[in-house]
């Protein structure tokens, strides 16, 4: 997780620096805000990854947090890891689901409503709400259509 953290923090530092240079050279607020937004986009997840990297190593996050028992790096972060080191559940993958399709059709009708008439909002929003309920219920119980 260390490389991931460095990668994202690097994004934040680079765009923070470029944003500041750009601001003092141009005083143009639109571009400055986009660059600072990009800086935040890198720093926020980057620091989160760094926090977990430190937790895995049993270290403090800078001066904050308690020292936990080190669990070591993830198998995918270790050069010497064998495949069986990743034993256990990787993730839960839905076998199939109709709800993404329903959600997509709902979004389709909803945006068309903005162009062709608000009456399309009725089926559009209906599909969106149905799909959101359906996908949530499916996540709770598992299963496919």
């Amino acid at each position, binding site marked *: 997780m260390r*490389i*991931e953290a460095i*990668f*994202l923090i*690097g*994004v934040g530092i*680079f*765009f923070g620096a470029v944003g500041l240079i*750009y601001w003092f*050279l*141009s005083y*143009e607020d*639109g*571009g400055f805000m*986009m*660059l600072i937004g*990009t800086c935040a*986009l890198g720093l926020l997840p980057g620091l989160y*990854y760094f926090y977990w990297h430190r937790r895995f190593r049993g270290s403090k996050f800078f001066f904050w947090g308690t020292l936990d028992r080190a669990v070591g790096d993830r*198998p*995918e*972060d*270790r*050069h*010497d*890891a*064998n*495949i*069986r*080191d*990743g*034993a*256990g*559940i*990787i*993730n*839960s*993958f*839905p*076998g*199939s*689901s*109709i*709800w*993404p*399709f329903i*959600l*997509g*059709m709902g*979004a*389709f009708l909803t*945006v*068309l409503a*903005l*162009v062709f008439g608000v009456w399309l909002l009725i089926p559009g929003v209906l599909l969106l709400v149905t799909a959101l309920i359906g*996908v949530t219920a499916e996540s709770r119980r*598992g*299963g*496919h*259509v």
Partner: protein
Amino acid sequence: MTDVINPPITLPGSAGGVHVPAAHDGHADHHEDHGPSGLLKWLTTTDHKVIGLSYMITSLCLFYVAGIMALGIRVQLATPSGSFVSFQQYNELFTMHGSLMLYLFAGPFAFGGLANYIVPLQVGAPDMAFPRLNALSYWLYLTGSITMLLGFFVAGGAADFGWVAYAPLSSAVYTPGAGADVWIMALALTGFSAIFTGVNLVGTIFYLRAPGMTMFRMPIFTWNMLVTGILILIAFPVLTSALIMLFCDRHFGTHIYDVIGCTTTATAGHPAVPDPSACGSPVLWQNLFWFFGHPEVYILALPYFGIATEIIPVFSRKPVFGYKGMVFATMSIAALSTGVWAHHMFTTGVVLLPFFSLLSLLIAVPTGIKFFNWIGTMWRGQIQFQTPMLFCIGFLLAFLMGGVTGVMLAAPPIDFFTHDTYFVVAHFHQVLFGTAVFAGFAGLYFWYPKMFGRMLNDHLGKWHFWLMFVGFWLTFMPQYIVGLKGMPRRVATYPGDLGWQIYNDLSTAGAFVIAISFAVLLVNLWISWRRPVPAGDNPWDGHALEWFTTSPPPHHNYTHLPPIRSERPTWDYNHPDHPSLHHGTKAPGGPPGDGSGGTREKVPVA
């Protein structure tokens, strides 16, 4: 059914892998039972391979549609006073050609299609991190594509303000009608689709890598898709929000980009008068659009750089030269590309020329490193000129030309002279055709056997390449010249006495040669479908993990994985006497990087 995936077992390998019994996962017993079949299977699938193929097929269909539009444009320009289409239709054609090619083909083919299919395989994952979000991405992309094409069927025709939709031309006053609105809505849908795909790619690469697949063992294609995913997350939200504001300007009376109708409120005795403080800023649209638009160029280019970096080593029988240099060059290109957006706005007179010019010129450095490494990979290799490799060499030449003219355009004095001429048209077509088409179809020929378990005909593939190669140069080189002679872009007719026609005729002839080359591809696909030649699991003796599994891969991709001790795990497994060289180690007694590896150190394994 929700499949809970246990890790695949390890095969015994030269690098010390241990064979363990197959774990019972409640899934391996019924590989064929994965829910519905037929059309319902396609509608409900969450399998990254099916979604990836759906992306590729859809984007290729749109590529052919946009290509036919390009032929219409070229026929119109073959004579100075062409009457093949009306001025209005011409404007619609070039707008929709650009929109389809850039928004609906080049990007989705790479990050929606190839990346969706290949990245989980390359990192040893069973699927993308968020399979249902992945499916939703595709449905948003498909419906967005349909929405954009709907423009041709509404009153007033499709959008006709160019693929960049500059304000105030894109306002409701200058571009009335539903065509522009469906264009905006189409991009909103595909924008969300791209953002979700970006999230999925980053999540998959960060969380679903197989044990031993460290970040610096990932194939370069996967690295490039990670960087592309970050670029998508930086760029697309800006476009989507800019589009929503444009829609508000058109319909809800906001004046964000609009300079029309912004007046004081009329009161008794005080009629409404123009009020500059209530006006929007058209340049703000350019600022927002190009903050998306220039990273978008690299969102379109970086995946294709990755494809070339996968193919060139395989067909040179060598590891990639300068692996880490490639990774850092990719990062540098992406970082710089996000700081150069206003080099498209030099002629507005309101941007900081030295800043944007310097950053634009700097992109040449990491790009040069990539070229150096591609050549270094081929250097003294046993190069096999099969179809994917030919397309990669075509990509190198095309992108080199597009890149060099890009360096020229990064200099404001040259940009002032050539802005909005055919010189720029030739430049960006050489960049984008070079990457998305040459490298994209290299990827198609390269990974087609993995996706379908059958080969494409190499002889026909070479015909495809050579026709496209000749057509490409014949189409775009004359455009540089006619651009320098002053021909502006986006014109349906031009004066007949300026000597421009011969260049336009050459360009038109080249476009038809390209069209013939893509007819050859269709024939090749047809033959592959009707008379399949089995490919086997690893027809190219490939390096990365995707070549370890069957062709096509099974549900959830792997039943077994080899030990991962380098960025070439499949090569290491198949060539136990020629393992990859660990980064930073020397190969005493043997020439480095020649692929023979006979005297190399073996990477120590646990």
